[in-house]
């Protein structure tokens, strides 16, 4: 490739990535040259500014044509834009949480790293959304994962944090190996790593043997990526990792990482297996044929997530199971494969972003105050801080999926999808039944917040029992609540933006 060629590439479509990358570099350097005792928070703010700038540039790209560079390894289509927005938004909120996070247990030595590792993980997620090639997908995935491993264990002096990171590394390693193994067969059968090329090849597939092999590789990829989503039965790392990791990291894992996971699942499954013929051209694609497997996984995920969450006494663990359950709901949308699937997944992830981020912000505040993450620590929150309590109440209601909140609209959207094409009665029933089960634990937290008296000790503390909310937390809470309620009442603000500017379905396969 000559320099001219190099120059002639439309690098501008990578502007958001470049912004983040540049800021990472700047932050690394700044961290290096900053005096040791200087507060690193400034790095966090710079990071936030960078993310916002990236978001603006992504917004600016909305409505354009599909473009791709570097031999179609990097593509910018509506799908990428839509999910990049989510990922960047989630990243920004995580950074807000991070700036307000009290650095302890070794984190105080690495606050600088904390921010730019978050940014690099974010970069990985962004790459994943835009990748048009198995290689870039994989690189993006690992670019997201490896910093995540470090982030989970960044509180070096805290055993739980170490353990959580260790478990994450091992499980993540195994899963990516499995997924990669599956991908290698896909490559072997097509001789290409480019997704669209693969799709083109596979739609001509005639040989039953090969289709068989492809089916196996489908399962392997599904399982490998299922780890990222924390779909049952590949979910078991999630509770431990979520519990041990620092709260902003948990928030990051449960929102950004999961979003990225869904991005890659949709991307691979739809392009590669959505067109892979089972029995010669024009026959039913593997993906449709595999719908039942997906449905089983989705149902298992919803059931396990919601049911086991009932037994938890640690709030972060409970939210881990809750996020497993939400992954299950999202998988319902993936399973149904209807035309509004992109929109329903996107909208659900948007709603999930708001409600989960907000909830983790509250968790962060409360657990910093009490020094533990027991659900019982929320007792009497309403007395101690009514606003915080009401905020958490709204977010929990949204998570439980009651009307008036974005969580409801998201669920409704998925639910409609389950009936829009071929109706999936059982799956829809499981979804709604487990939703009712989820009332138990969400409202269990509310019981603590609103009904239980505050523990006697903290009542005596007087002034000390007041919560002082750092700016970052306040921002997150406001965004979360406004988002949850606004999109619950007027979801078309978001939905219409999608429809008017982004033609995902059209772009996705071109």
């Amino acid at each position, binding site marked *: 490739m000559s320099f001219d060629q190099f120059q002639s590439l439309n690098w501008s479509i990578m502007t958001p990535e470049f912004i983040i990358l540049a800021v990472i570099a700047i932050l690394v350097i700044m961290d290096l040259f900053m005096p040791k005792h200087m507060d690193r928070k400034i790095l966090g703010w710079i990071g936030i500014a960078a993310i916002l700038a990236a978001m603006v540039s992504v917004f600016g790209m909305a409505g354009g044509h599909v473009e791709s560079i570097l031999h179609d390894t990097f593509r910018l289509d509506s799908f990428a834009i839509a999910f990049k927005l989510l990922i960047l938004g989630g990243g920004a909120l995580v950074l807000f949480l991070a700036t307000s996070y009290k650095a302890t247990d070794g984190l105080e030595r690495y606050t600088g790293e904390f921010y730019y590792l978050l940014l690099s993980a974010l970069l990985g997620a962004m790459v994943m959304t835009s990748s048009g090639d*198995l*290689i870039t997908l*994989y*690189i993006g995935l*690992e670019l997201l*994962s*490896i910093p995540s*491993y*470090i982030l989970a*264990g960044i509180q*070096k*002096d*805290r*055993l*739980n944090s*170490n*353990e*959580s*990171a*260790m*478990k994450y*590394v*091992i499980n*993540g*390693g*195994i899963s*990516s*190996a*499995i997924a*990669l*193994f599956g*991908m*290698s*067969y896909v*490559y*072997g*059968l*097509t*001789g*290409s*790593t480019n997704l669209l090329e693969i799709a083109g*090849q596979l739609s001509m597939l005639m040989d039953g043997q*090969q289709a068989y092999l492809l089916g196996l590789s489908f399962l392997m990829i599904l399982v490998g990526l299922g780890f990222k989503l924390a779909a049952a039965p590949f979910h078991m790392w999630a*509770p*431990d990792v979520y*519990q*041990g990791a620092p709260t902003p990291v948990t928030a990051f894992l449960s929102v950004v990482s999961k979003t990225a996971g869904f991005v890659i699942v949709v991307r691979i499954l739809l392009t590669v297996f959505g067109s892979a013929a089972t029995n010669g051209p024009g026959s039913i694609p593997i993906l449709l044929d595999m719908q039942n497997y997906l449905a089983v996984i989705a149902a298992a995920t919803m059931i396990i997530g919601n049911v086991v969450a009932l*037994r938890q006494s640690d709030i972060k*663990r409970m939210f881990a199971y809750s996020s497993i359950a939400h992954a299950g709901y999202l998988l319902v949308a993936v399973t149904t494969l209807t035309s509004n699937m992109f929109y329903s997944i996107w909208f659900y992830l948007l709603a999930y972003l708001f409600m989960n981020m907000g909830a983790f912000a509250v968790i962060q505040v409360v657990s910093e105050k009490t020094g533990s993450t027991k659900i019982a620590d929320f007792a009497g929150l309403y007395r101690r801080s009514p606003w915080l309590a009401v905020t958490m109440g709204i977010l929990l209601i949204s998570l439980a999926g009651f009307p008036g909140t974005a969580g409801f609209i998201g669920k409704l959207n998925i639910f409609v999808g389950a009936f829009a094409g071929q109706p999936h009665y059982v799956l829809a029933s499981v979804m709604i039944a487990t939703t009712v089960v989820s009332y138990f634990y969400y409202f269990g937290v509310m019981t603590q917040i609103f009904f239980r008296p505050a523990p006697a000790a903290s009542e005596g503390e007087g002034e000390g029992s007041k919560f002082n909310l750092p700016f970052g937390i306040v921002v997150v809470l406001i965004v979360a609540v406004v988002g949850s309620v606004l999109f619950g009442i007027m979801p078309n603000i978001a939905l219409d933006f999608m429809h008017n500017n982004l033609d995902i379905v059209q772009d996705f396969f071109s």
Partner: protein
Amino acid sequence: MSSVPASAFLALALILFCIGLYGALTKRNTVIVLISIELMLNAVNINLVTFSKYGMAPSITGQVFALFAMAVAAAEAAVGLAILMSLYRNKKTVNIDEMDQMKH
């Protein structure tokens, strides 16, 4: 070279992968577990390289993919070992079955 059929390479990769998986799931020493994961990734690499040469449509992409995979695997191993070090500092053990402080 051509006397060795492609299926032999694929079988080797599969066996290697299974050994890796077995090791990752059964060994007590975390270092060995990490190495086993490397084995699994290397099995993938064998696959990729084999397909790049003997696949349906041989192409160089497979080898490129394998290079990327190696680099990533190295990074992953490095991070894994680093985390293990800090864990060891706190817990004085590298046995993976003793890392069960968080459960249920």
